[in-house]
């Protein structure tokens, strides 16, 4: 259990709802859910969700901290925003799902090896590095995230796609030697660091 988690448990005892309200992006909306379930039915990957958004909200109210934060449900969010536009209470459900995922990740309670979680991290690291995404490095990183051999397998599996993109000049092998980047990378790094610091100070 990481310090953040320990400290959160200490702070909020078992008032998980308050914890979510104060620490999770748009978490203060959770209490406004009226359990109609329209979000649950609107999710394109719905059947992959162990707990639907509306159910997660109920679990939060019921103080099921462990179950919620270790769930991989919110990692199934494709950001299609169907739930947001249909919610009769106008809850920003997509953001809350993102927020919960991020919070679980930060507390290191999110499922180990959850693919979206891993890729999200790769993606972020990749983009902050230069300020812009390097799709080749990102893809390679993706393939090799589960170790070298698996990476080769993944790469081979996706070879056709890769070559296709290369042929179509939509994947540039040269990117491996640097590729696109922002000029003011230093500024960007300092900026992100600052933002993280502020958030940490505000939301633990």
């Amino acid at each position, binding site marked *: 259990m990481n310090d953040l988690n320990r400290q959160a448990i200490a702070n909020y005892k078992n008032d998980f709802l308050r914890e979510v309200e104060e620490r999770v992006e748009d978490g203060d909306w959770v209490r406004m859910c009226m359990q109609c379930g329209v979000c649950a039915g609107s999710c*394109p990957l719905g059947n992959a969700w162990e707990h639907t958004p509306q159910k997660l909200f109920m679990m939060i109210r019921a103080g099921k901290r462990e179950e919620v934060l270790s769930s991989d449900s919110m990692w199934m969010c494709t950001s299609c925003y169907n739930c947001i536009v249909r919610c009769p209470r106008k809850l920003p459900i997509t953001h809350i799902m993102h927020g919960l995922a991020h919070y679980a*990740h930060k507390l290191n309670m999110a499922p180990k090896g959850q693919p979206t979680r891993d890729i999200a991290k790769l*993606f972020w690291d990749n983009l902050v590095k230069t300020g812009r995404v390097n799709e080749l490095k990102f893809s390679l990183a993706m393939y090799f995230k589960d170790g070298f051999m698996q990476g080769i397998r993944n790469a081979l599996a996706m070879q056709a796609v890769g070559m296709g993109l290369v042929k179509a000049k939509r994947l540039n092998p040269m990117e491996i030697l640097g590729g696109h980047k922002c000029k003011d990378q230093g500024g960007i790094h*300092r900026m992100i660091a600052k*933002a993280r610091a502020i958030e940490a100070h505000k939301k633990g």
Partner: protein
Amino acid sequence: MSKRQYAFYPGCSSQKGASASNFVTSIQMMCEKLGVQLNEIPDWNCCGASIGYGEGGELPRLVLNARNLALAEQHLPGQDMVSGCPACWLSTRETAERLNKFDDLMAEANEALKEAGLNLKGSVKARHIVEVLIEDVGFAEMRQAVVKPLQDLKIAGYVGCQTNRPFGITGESFENPLYLDKMIETVGAEAVSSYDQKVTCCGGALAFSEPDKSQKQIRDIVESAYDHGAEMIVTPCQLCQANVEVYQSEINKKQGTQFNMPVVYYSQLMTVAYGGGVKQAGLDGHIIQPKKLQDIAGK
């Protein structure tokens, strides 16, 4: 006549040699013909996309976009910020609206921006190119510019998610937006009006992490296009384009389908209709060749 000026935010996937490089190619001539001038924002950075949240969290994600807004505000004052990529547009607009709504967030964002020597007032409006076409240019002008109507071409207009939700194009429905079909008809092609996968999610970023689940989505999208007699799919979204085009071979491999459905951008249709060639329309940038469109462009 003087051109309409916009601060342009291409986004990572539109860079040279990136997955949507042919999109940027295809909008050059379209904008030229429609008197739209896109001025690239100097040193723009990634928006964090729809998956940045996992590691990035809230404020870091916001400031990434705040930086682009600030750069536009500073270098291209008075110009609306326009993006061709729904994810970029969405993140930027969301950021702009949230920062303008909550002063504390704006203050925090600026505190971080200071580190990059920038400051955001919040004057910039974040828009999508499609908005520019529909609201500023208008269908009439779009039609006028047509020199090569794309006759007997049956196209499924696939809008996807993020161009459509949560913001969408003003006046359009989240469930059944009509503007894309209208654009298809504007360039003389036939839109499959009964296409029922218009706004189905392609899996987005989860195409990488949850291939099987996303490919099920993609399969529906392509299948319905075939069922309704479409010859190609057209979309305003880079990620949709990539996902729906790229993974067809995978789906064929795994599920024994014989998908070979071209997926192009509306801008490519328009460029061809405006007289553009294969290269100008970025039609050389496809894995599944949009033959029919290429032929018309070739003529």
